[in-house]
């Protein structure tokens, strides 16, 4: 069982017999009051999002989902298509099932497909992914609102903050668990 102190973004829980993933998480504690654990949860089967607040006395059943290693093939109008390289079986995941993970998919990437009742309902990505910066304006010195950061977009359409020295066309490494910039990659 998980306790409240285990709760964090990306953790998967069983709620009313269905797997849910924490899409957003924050800890809150009004002055001198009790700790409240505020979650935005996504039902991994229906994709529906809802808010739930837990107190520290509560505990949670982990959603232990079977994983199957598959390769990302392509995206079409039905969704994102993956293939098991041993059985050649294919499975399609919807946009909602992938969430932000869709921004970190690269052709032929190997991922873990999460299964519930033999159906693919989500993926686990490698911890780091390398993507090319497709758009980023030159940094304007004096624009200190963001410190030394500036906004950038990578080839998959994902937007993030990068250091001022990162230029368009460069390849950067992103931590898929946090969605944050890690470093520039030579190349």
């Amino acid at each position, binding site marked *: 069982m998980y306790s409240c102190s285990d709760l964090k973004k990306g953790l998967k829980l069983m709620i009313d017999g269905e797997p849910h993933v924490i899409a957003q998480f*924050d800890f809150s504690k*009004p*002055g001198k009051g009790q700790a*409240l654990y505020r979650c935005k949860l996504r039902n991994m089967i229906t994709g529906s999002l809802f808010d739930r607040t837990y107190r520290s006395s509560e505990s949670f059943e982990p959603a232990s989902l079977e994983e199957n290693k598959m390769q990302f093939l392509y995206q079409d109008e039905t969704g994102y298509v993956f293939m098991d390289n041993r059985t050649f079986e294919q499975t399609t995941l919807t946009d909602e099932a992938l969430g932000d993970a869709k921004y970190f998919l690269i052709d032929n990437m190997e991922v873990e497909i999460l299964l519930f009742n033999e159906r693919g309902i989500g993926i686990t990505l490698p911890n780091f992914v390398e993507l090319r910066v497709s758009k980023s304006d030159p940094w304007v010195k004096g624009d200190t*609102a963001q410190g030394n950061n500036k906004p950038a977009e990578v080839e998959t359409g994902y937007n993030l903050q990068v250091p001022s020295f990162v230029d368009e066309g460069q390849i950067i490494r992103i931590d898929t668990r946090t969605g944050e910039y890690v470093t520039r990659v030579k190349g």
Partner: protein
Amino acid sequence: MTNWSLARKKDNLHKRARIVQTIRAFFIDRDFLEVETPLRIPANAPEIHILAEPSGDWFLQTSPELCMKRLLAANYPRLFQISRCWRQQERGSRHLPEFTMLEWYQTASDYLDLMNCCEELLRALAPEGRILVQGRSINLTAPFKRLSVEQAFCQYGSSSMEQALADGSFDEQIAIQIEPHLGWTTPCFLYDYPAEMAALARKKPSDPRVAERFELYIGGLELANAFSELTDPTEQRLRFDEEEKARRTAALPPYPLPGKFLDELTYLSDCAGIALGIDRLLMLLIGTGDIRDVVAFAPEDL
């Protein structure tokens, strides 16, 4: 490659250092004595919802409050301290388990005097007279709004304060329904908390259901907690006993009572004290919603 998550904070850390210097100058100019009290102590004030970090047989302080009040009781009339505090299991976008607290205390004053002092401090820290939070400009030059907890429940809560206390939804209503509305045109003092939620505060003479306690909110962020201090040792002992009883009911480990503090409370005259989170203040002055942006290292970075 440089660690960018550290390198990117350079401007913020420079700003942090400057702000802390301004705070020191503010209090020294007003004849407050800066003190340093031990971070590792035999007993904190027992409070049901605050978990102290054990350190050997003792504890890391959850606040310098008890040592500050012992000095006050020994005739130090105006004191301030900027120190580290530890509270277990508190980590979120506005919480760090190890954080920096500014506390100041003065004798012959009450929580209303502290409200005025907060207004002056904020104006000294943001001389442009406003703070920008999420694109909204919060005016610091006008008198700050004062809203009683009871009024806040009427205005934003789903029930009255009395009802919320009875059904156990007080904290949830404060955190989810009330806090997000507070302190957007001017900062806001939320004041007069139910007496059972202020173990170290004096009860209001005209309405003993509530204690003379306030919290300062800016842009929905809770920044400071203040009291007219409880100076009656007998009542203080009773309040601590109640907190300890509540801890036992919640199956929490017992805490030792701060004996010397209770003994010396007899010599404490009327006074008021306040704790202000420096990291949260910096979040407001720097313009970030993530406390990790204003410290060099969060626990995950170690």
